[in-house]
């Protein structure tokens, strides 16, 4: 039996639909059933027993004390029975201490000093908003200049026990490039992340609002809740990312200071212009129109959205066109095609589109196996849409990504 409240929300739902959809909505509401009296009694019983309630709290305290006492007794007994174990434990503590003080020394205010020094000027924050502490300070060396082989993370230190945070990939840095990553977090899960590498001669700042940081040209852009400031200073390409307000992020940017310069010893003379690793054997870059051509129609451009199963930078979007006003000519038709339930999406056999991961074992680039992707080739009068992986099920994510990109492209 429907209550007055039920009737109200059901009416509201039905008002959202019209025509045949309203009929389907009405039928869906008819599928609802009332919970049985037995279920109500079962749920009633959950909180009704006061003894059980008190026992929950008391039980937790008792278990906490009991397990703590058991653990202490076991450790003391083991140390008493095996003197060597105590020595080994002390050695392990010492080794851990040495390890933490090894390749990256923590100085005042959480400043890190890398040894040997990276082959570019290292900048670190002279200011951080209150409550932010360093959680990851990571350095990836460049490929060995003698063999040309990549060196897997020569130095990596975690200042955090959060292994997930420490394992985050470094975005926007080509494989084999020496770079460092500094990450700071506060108790409210906000973060400030800095990626630095040697600037390349052909480096261009990413699209975004132009501004100046320490007198250098810079851009700022926003992806969801994250703001990204990019600039080049003293030959170092710096990307500052944060989930803090823009004025705070810019304050951090303006107060970045040089903490280290490259050494002149040659031990870390990795090439600044390291040749990008080759594609692995059998890997062919995709060229031309992978969804076919449309006779008699002019090609406008393409949009590719790769969707990852990860929390940081979960999507990448790239698009290209030779026509003027690509937003109207390419992005908007692509969005409309994606939003149209009648659009046919053709499955594609590739693991990703234009995305590669460096294989340290093979020393070459393999196509990245992404969670899913959607690719759209826009022609004068139609849009061809393809997908791979779970791309078809992730259409809503792709739509959101494309909508955000269109907003960023607004004049």
């Amino acid at each position, binding site marked *: 039996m429907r209550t007055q409240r*039920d009737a109200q929300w059901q009416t509201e739902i039905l008002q959202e*639909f019209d025509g045949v*959809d309203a009929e389907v909505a009405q*039928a869906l509401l008819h599928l609802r059933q009332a919970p049985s009296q037995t279920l109500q009694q079962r749920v009633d019983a959950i909180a009704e027993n*006061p003894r059980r309630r008190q026992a929950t709290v008391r039980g937790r305290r008792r278990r906490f004390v009991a397990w703590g006492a058991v653990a202490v007794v076991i450790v003391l007994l083991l140390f008493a029975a095996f003197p060597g174990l105590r020595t080994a434990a002390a050695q392990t503590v010492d080794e851990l201490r040495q390890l933490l003080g090894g390749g990256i020394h923590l100085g005042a205010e959480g400043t890190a000093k890398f040894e040997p020094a990276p082959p570019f000027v290292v900048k670190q924050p002279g200011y951080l908003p209150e409550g932010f502490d360093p959680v990851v300070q990571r350095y990836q060396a460049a490929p060995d200049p003698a063999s040309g082989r990549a060196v897997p993370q020569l130095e990596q230190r975690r200042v955090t026990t959060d292994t997930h945070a420490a394992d985050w990939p470094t975005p926007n840095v080509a494989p084999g490039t020496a770079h460092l990553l500094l990450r700071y977090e506060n108790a409210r899960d906000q973060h400030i992340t800095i990626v630095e590498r040697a600037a390349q001669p052909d480096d261009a700042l990413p699209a975004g609002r132009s501004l100046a940081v320490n007198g250098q040209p810079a851009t700022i852009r926003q992806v969801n809740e994250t703001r990204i400031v990019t600039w080049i200073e003293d030959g170092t390409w710096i990307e500052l990312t944060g989930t803090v307000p823009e004025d705070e992020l810019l304050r951090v940017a303006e107060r970045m200071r040089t903490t280290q310069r490259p050494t002149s010893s040659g031990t870390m003379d990795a090439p600044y212009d390291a040749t990008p690793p080759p594609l692995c054997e059998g890997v062919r870059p995709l060229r031309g129109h992978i969804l076919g051509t449309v006779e008699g129609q002019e090609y406008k451009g393409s949009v590719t959205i790769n969707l990852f199963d990860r929390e940081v930078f979960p999507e990448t979007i790239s698009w290209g066109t030779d026509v003027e006003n690509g937003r109207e000519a390419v992005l908007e038709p692509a969005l409309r095609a994606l*939003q149209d339930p009648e659009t046919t999406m053709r499955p594609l056999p590739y693991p990703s589109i234009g995305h590669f991961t460096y294989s340290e074992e093979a020393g070459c680039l393999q196509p990245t196996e992404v969670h899913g992707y959607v690719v759209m080739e826009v022609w004068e009068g139609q849009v061809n849409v393809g997908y791979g992986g779970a791309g078809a099920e992730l259409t809503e994510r792709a*739509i*959101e990504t494309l909508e955000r990109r269109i907003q960023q492209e607004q004049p």
Partner: protein
Amino acid sequence: MLNDFIDSITSKSLRQWATIEAEDFSSLYRRHLDAVFNYCLFRVGDRAVAEDLTAEAFERAWRARDRYRPERAAFSTWLFTIVRRLVIDWYRRQDRHPTTALDTPVPDDNPTPEAQLEEAERLAHLRDIVLQLQEHEQELIALKFGAGMTNRRIAEVIGKSESAVGTAIYRIMKKLRAAWKDT
């Protein structure tokens, strides 16, 4: 001394445990029982299983009430996090999608037994179509029509934008309409 130490550590947590007490819980569950049960029903397609999952959801919510932070999310958002996880776990345990039918729904506003039977058959077919939807589609329909949530609340629960939820539901309705009309 040890007790003082333990108290100092746990007193904060104990205060939090006390935030949802039995009276609050009863009133909260009464408000959400129908939504949770029908969400489960739409998801698993079996009344007995849906009742078990509902009871287990409230049991877990009661046990985990110290972890609920009113300043972070509405109670229903938190509760449905538990319920959705339970349903996913249930599917994993079953390693199957529902194929058995619900009790045949009988609309109460049809004049003749024949018409009632015909309508019941149409509803049964619609229910079968819902149960054959992809998981994320079924999820949205269950939250919308089973739990009776607004698109905004659904967006909070599943962590997507309100417009994305609206678009997705629109697409699913179109799909349902096409499949249902084929009968």
